[in-house]
């Protein structure tokens, strides 16, 4: 009996305590906005960003994966950088540059008085070290960005010279990549390759001060940053919140200020919440159907054209992306400056498609497997709508949803009929994607097992063409030839699904995915 009484008493005490505790926090919360108002909406010190995955490797040369790439720009800068809208390259640590007459030597003048985030000055030695480290690792994924560099030299701390192996149109875009960012040589010598996985010292607006793997990353403003008055916000906390719904709820409740990696349907649902601003950022992430020409039916160009005519990418885009996506006319990202304007967005023509199918010898249609990766909502929506549209010309689609590993195996093994395929640019230049599209051996004609006549040569030419107009013409020709082969059905480019609380401003994500947060602020209240 006594024991029971004791337990009861203890329980009552705990309840009472927790009630007072709650009361306490409530009054505190209630006071905060009032304080903020009094201080004339002073910007907050810390901004919390919720994302779906943690990074796994911050070594600029070795890392792969968006969860690393997206945050590298916070800490790392190079000679040049891609603009916020992803359309061009602009100066960053270099103020200006000259190109030799033969196009093989680039001489950069650097900003004076540059310091790393630990306060040590940036020397020519650091520049040479950073480039030579990237150039010494030919097996890494980003080696293509430095492949064309023959050598680099730094005659003094404000001049940096890059010697190329051959003339290339993509030199500046390549130099804007993270492989060409300047890092502290002294820090590298201290920690080595293993330590580099956990971060490096660069000149970017922020520095990584704490990383609890799988949970959060803490960034603090770089006190030596070379732009006066930036970064505006002192601390940025990146929290890993894997579940989409949880990220949405934490954003709504104010536990986090920005939610990234959301899904299109979360964005759509957040539209009605006035505490939150939906901010779909333009991206280079495309979705298109790739037709595997190893398939008996799909080897027939008339069949491919008929399927293309039966597809209505405009409807698919508006339903699958809730109108956030942009319907595509070619497989290039819609933000690209190299899209051939003479190729129209595909228009659905069911009668024409039926006629073509009959001419091809399949008046009653046939059946095809459409492969998607399971758990991806946009892909699943695209597949669902394609099935509905193709059924109207008698083509019976079986949607095969595989988990990631099987999906990738099937994709590389060309073990599918049609796939909802994707591409994401990493560099603000069409050269990376064009290489994959035009070099048949890289990925079996980009998952189609079809060699488009002459595009490999055209691409070689384009990569060396320095005249912008002539280069565009070459890329137009490639796109035209690909379109005439009917091996892809372009669908859309989907945006990065971000949402912020209303008091956040200047949250920037470039179309390549890089987070630019130097001017981001949060007003209190």
């Amino acid at each position, binding site marked *: 009996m006594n024991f029971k009484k004791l337990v009861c008493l203890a329980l009552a005490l705990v309840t009472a305590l927790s009630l007072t505790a709650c009361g306490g926090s409530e009054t505190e919360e209630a006071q905060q906005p009032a304080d903020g108002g009094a201080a004339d909406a002073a910007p907050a010190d810390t901004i919390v960003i919720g994302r779906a995955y943690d990074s796994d490797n911050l070594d600029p040369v070795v890392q792969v994966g968006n969860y690393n790439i997206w945050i590298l720009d916070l800490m790392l800068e190079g000679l040049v950088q891609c603009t916020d809208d992803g359309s061009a390259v602009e100066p960053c640590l270099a103020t200006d540059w000259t190109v030799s007459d033969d196009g093989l030597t680039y001489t950069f003048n650097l900003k004076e008085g540059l310091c790393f985030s630990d306060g040590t000055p940036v020397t020519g030695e650091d520049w040479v070290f950073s480039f030579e480290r990237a150039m010494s690792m030919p097996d890494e994924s980003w080696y293509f960005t430095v492949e064309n560099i023959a050598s680099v030299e730094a005659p003094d701390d404000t001049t940096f010279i890059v010697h190329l192996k051959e003339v290339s149109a993509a030199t500046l875009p390549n130099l804007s990549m993270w492989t060409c960012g300047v890092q502290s040589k002294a820090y590298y010598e201290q920690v080595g390759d293993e330590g580099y996985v956990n971060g490096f010292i660069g000149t970017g607006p922020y520095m990584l001060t704490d990383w609890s793997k799988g949970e959060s990353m803490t960034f603090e403003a770089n006190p030596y940053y070379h732009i006066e008055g930036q970064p505006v916000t002192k601390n940025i906390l990146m929290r890993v919140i894997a579940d989409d719904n949880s990220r949405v709820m934490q954003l709504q409740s104010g536990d986090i200020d920005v939610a990234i990696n959301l899904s299109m349907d979360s964005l759509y649902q957040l539209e009605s919440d006035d505490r939150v601003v939906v901010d779909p950022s333009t991206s280079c992430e495309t979705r298109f159907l790739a037709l595997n020409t190893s398939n008996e039916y799909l080897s027939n160009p008339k069949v491919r054209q008929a399927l293309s005519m039966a597809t209505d990418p405009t409807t698919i885009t508006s339903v699958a992306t809730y109108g956030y996506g942009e319907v595509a006319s070619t497989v290039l990202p819609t933000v690209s400056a190299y899209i051939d304007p003479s190729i129209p967005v595909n228009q659905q023509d069911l009668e024409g498609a039926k006629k073509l199918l009959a001419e091809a010898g399949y008046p009653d249609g046939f059946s095809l497997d459409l492969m998607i990766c399971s758990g991806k909502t946009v892909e699943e929506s695209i597949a669902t709508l394609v099935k*509905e549209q193709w059924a109207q010309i008698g083509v019976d689609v079986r949607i095969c949803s595989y988990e990631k590993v099987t999906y990738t195996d099937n994709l590389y093994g060309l073990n599918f009929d049609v796939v909802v395929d994707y591409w994401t640019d990493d560099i603000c230049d069409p050269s990376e994607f064009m290489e994959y599209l035009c070099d048949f051996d890289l990925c079996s004609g980009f998952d189609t097992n079809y060699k488009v006549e002459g595009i490999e040569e055209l691409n070689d030419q384009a990569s060396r063409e320095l005249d912008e107009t002539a280069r565009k013409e070459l890329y137009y020709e490639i796109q035209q030839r690909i379109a005439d082969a009917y091996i892809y059905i372009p669908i859309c480019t989907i945006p990065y699904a971000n949402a912020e609380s209303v008091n956040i401003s200047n949250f920037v994500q470039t179309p390549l995915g890089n987070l630019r947060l130097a001017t981001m602020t949060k007003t209190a209240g």
Partner: protein
Amino acid sequence: MKVKVTARGGVRRLSLWQRSPSLVMGLVIVAVAVFVAVFPQLLTSADPYASDQAAMLLGPSAQHWFGTDNYGRDLFSRVVYGTRIDLLIGLGCVAVPFVFGSLLGLIAGYYGGKVDAIIMRVLDVFMAFPFLIMVIAIVAILGPGTRNLLIAMWIVGWKEYTRLIRSEVLVAKQSEYVQSARTMGYSDLRIMLRHILPNVISSAIVYAASDIVMCMGTAASLSYLGIGVEPTTPEWGAIINGGKSFINSAWWITVIPGAVLAVVGWGFSMLGDGLSDLLRADTH
């Protein structure tokens, strides 16, 4: 004698409801489900596959009783047409293991010795793998789709029936009627099928009724994991899976099919419970 007769008469006068209310309730629910599965077109005129851009994510209303999903498809018709698929999966998953599992159990129990040892060790191997993991592995090898899902469920589903029947056969084969059948010189086959099987099958039948519920649940969870039926199929688990990202704003996509799945599952469970009541009453 007189007492016995009244007692029997008393038993006979009890209605089915009085003898086993759960059986009646289960029967009613299952009967309704079967009716819906056989005549879905009587209940709804909407096409469960037809998307409508103008009607995305609408809540329950007079026009769309269960609301619409993110493609603007009518959820009521999807749930109604889904009944056939889920019942077929439930029954289809159970029928094959029920027959083959029971036969294997009969053989193992009756012959004993080496035959028993081989069957039971194979069974142990299957037992060692967790049910769901095994199904996922098989579906991954065979590829997704309803047919392969059924095959996967057959491969893992037989072992309970074998165990159940084997243990009953071990008891039954010692009984007098089997001994006398042996003395009469009946063949093994005749003794097994005509004399032992009818006496041991009731426990397997009761188990099967609850197994249907489990199979429907498993199929639904596989669809939820994205490796069950083909994505556009209006299977209940697949509908729930499709709605999970809308749980904050469009609860009807997950909650209504979930409730329907729960009610039908409950119905089968009650049916199994009632059957066991009935069979137990008969044997006593």
